[in-house]
């Protein structure tokens, strides 16, 4: 079937089987390999992308369901070559070790900050509870999100 959707701000179309996963559509059809496959059953969050602004597991969404929606992947949050403040702060805080959970972590945090620019520690933990990290440790990740929230707030004020 032919589907049309907005991918990282650009209108795109694809002629694909309706029952492949969004995860595979992104990685194999559009060659956006920043989205990772971990468990494949919706438990680890490595494949997190934003669908109409909401964090979803792309391993649980079928291509047919993507038709006419908006998808944002990790490749879509940079400003050209410049990293998004969340990405910069993940690096500055040592919140990336092996990096496999990072795209999902960053996108879950991105969705959180869009909705709640001033989250508490508990709200951050709740937002990333569906993203498993097995090596970096969550403290650095939470620190990175907090620092980003602070920076973005200053920018808005100016």
């Amino acid at each position, binding site marked *: 079937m032919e589907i049309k959707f907005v991918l990282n701000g650009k209108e795109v179309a694809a002629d694909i089987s309706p029952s492949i996963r969004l995860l595979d559509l992104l990685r*194999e059809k559009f060659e956006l390999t920043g989205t990772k496959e971990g468990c*494949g059953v919706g438990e680890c969050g490595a494949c997190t992308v934003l669908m109409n602004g909401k964090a979803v*597991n792309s391993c*649980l969404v079928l291509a047919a369901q993507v038709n006419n929606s908006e998808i944002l992947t990790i490749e879509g949050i940079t400003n050209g070559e410049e990293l998004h403040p969340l990405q910069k702060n993940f690096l500055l805080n040592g919140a990336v070790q092996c990096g496999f959970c990072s795209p999902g972590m960053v996108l879950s945090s991105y969705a959180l900050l869009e909705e709640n620019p001033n989250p508490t520690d508990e709200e951050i933990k709740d937002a990333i509870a*569906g993203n498993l990290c097995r090596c970096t440790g969550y403290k650095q990740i939470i620190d990175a999100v907090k620092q980003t929230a602070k920076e973005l707030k200053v920018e808005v004020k100016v």
Partner: protein
Amino acid sequence: MIDIMCEVLTPKNLAEALLLLSSADSTTKILAGGTDVVVGKTQGSKRFADAETLIDINRIEELKGISEKNGMISIGAAATFSEICKSKLVEEKLPLLKKASNTIGSLQIRNRATIAGNFVNNAPCADTVPALLVYDASIEIKSQTATRNVSLQEFLQGPYKTLLQQGELVTRILIPVPQQNYAGDFYKLGRRRAVAISRLTLAVVIQLKEKKIGDIRIASGAVTPIGTRFPKLEEFAIGQKMTDNLCQELAKKMGEEVLAVTGLRWSSAYKLPVVQQMFYQLLKGLER
């Protein structure tokens, strides 16, 4: 690349969906959040082995929304748990449903998974079932030719068995607005707080009049083969004075009732004291 090899139909409204269902056989399944169906297909679950066609109900407005009318709260079958958690109406009038919805999976799951999807397969671990049972929820079921309402308790026939017939779709969940003087609580025990399948869930609502129990409704999930109310226990409690002794006695009886339903299992030595303590703590929290 994983392809679950199904045709996916996307009806735009309820009439279209019911028309598609009217000519469908058992190889057609409903797809909403996909958190059960897609995983079931990719993991080769027997429950979805024969599925060839999926009807995606996500874009049907009639199956969305949460509203109140004539003392009834109506929740669309395809309302997601994120929508339920954010609803002021649910927060104010159905706090146990909010609490139960909040314990489901992760934010990513709650953004997709729907309320009807939680109980329509009658998996024993459905987290919202005990909350819906103590609120006396009923469900509206439609086919192309008829509409019927059944209580949720009646709908849930046995593990993975419900009253849903071929060609039918759960369209709304209907809950009478609880009276002001009811208090209640819900507790889920899982291996961890997020993305955990529940081991034990309990819900209770209680109406106290001068320390006496005017009404009490008790329901379990996961610890029993399907979510269920405890009518004998409720009957025993009604009219009694809410004391520490009564809470202990009710907790003990709850354990006996659970054991009577499940039989003695290898896990009973652990589960029984836990379910009793959980129930005792829930009751104590409501003693005031």
